[in-house]
């Protein structure tokens, strides 16, 4: 992991190499789903399918397998790197955020993976517009919360 600890001039907290390597893994995972199952690796759609709430057209067993794989993969990295200790928001902001993410991704047909990675990489107009939209409202939300002094992460 030390090799991945390279930093960007001007951004001491950024982890560009670890980020790029992680991103490449996400791309490989999405490619496995596309070339293996012929499906978009959109996490919101696959999660909805696993829960029986519409979503991805893949079979339900595969949807469950993909969703179960997500924490498994994160666990492997956490163990290999000697533990990750991120800070999370409290229960109330987590519930508000979860509801908005659940409602928004179903109405908007996708999230960061489906629109952001899979759709943008094939230059889908809908995905590019969706990605620009959720990036804009995400940036605005953080800016407003910071301006009004709303701290959510401990």
């Amino acid at each position, binding site marked *: 992991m030390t090799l991945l600890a390279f930093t960007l001039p001007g951004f001491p907290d950024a982890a560009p190499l670890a980020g790029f390597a992680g991103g490449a893994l996400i791309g490989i995972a999405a490619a496995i789903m596309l070339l293996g199952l012929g499906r978009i690796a959109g*996490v919101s759609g696959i999660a909805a399918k696993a829960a029986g709430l519409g979503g991805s057209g893949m079979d339900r067993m595969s949807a469950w397998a993909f969703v179960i794989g997500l924490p498994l993969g994160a666990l492997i990295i956490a163990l290999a790197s000697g533990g990750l200790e991120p800070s999370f928001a409290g229960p109330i902001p987590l519930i508000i955020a979860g509801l908005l993410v659940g409602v928004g991704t179903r109405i*908007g047909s996708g999230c960061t993976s489906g629109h952001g990675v899979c759709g943008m990489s094939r230059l889908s107009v809908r995905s590019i517009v969706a990605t620009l939209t959720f990036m804009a409202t995400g940036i605005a939300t953080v800016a407003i919360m910071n301006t009004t002094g709303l701290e959510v992460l401990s």
Partner: protein
Amino acid sequence: MSARAITALIGGTVFGAGLALGGMTDPARVRGFLDLFGDWDPTLAFVMGGALIVMAIAWRIVPGMARPLFEDGFHVPTRSDLDVKLIGGAALFGIGWGVAGLCPGPGFAALAIAPADAAIFVAAMMAGMLLVRFTERKS
């Protein structure tokens, strides 16, 4: 388990590993990227860049394949129209993403890192999806 389910399990595991390695299971990193007008952390742009490069190559392989390895055909979205649902839904999702610094993939992946916190987010997210399913059924 079917070959499809095993492939999906491998896909999900590699995806989760990528999210954790790229720092996306850390809400502070994600909110740092969205904090464009403050103390900006560009890491997420590198994650996105790495994923987009690999997937752009994968899309170029698709036309040369008669069918996917374990399915009868490719099933990818074909719509190209823009509508209120797409933009409104994406806007709501972005607000939620900004509030807690979590989107669906990292939410599930974080179940292995901070189970109690991630479970609250995932439960609320699934409740949100259920809500949409209910209203769509009624209309």
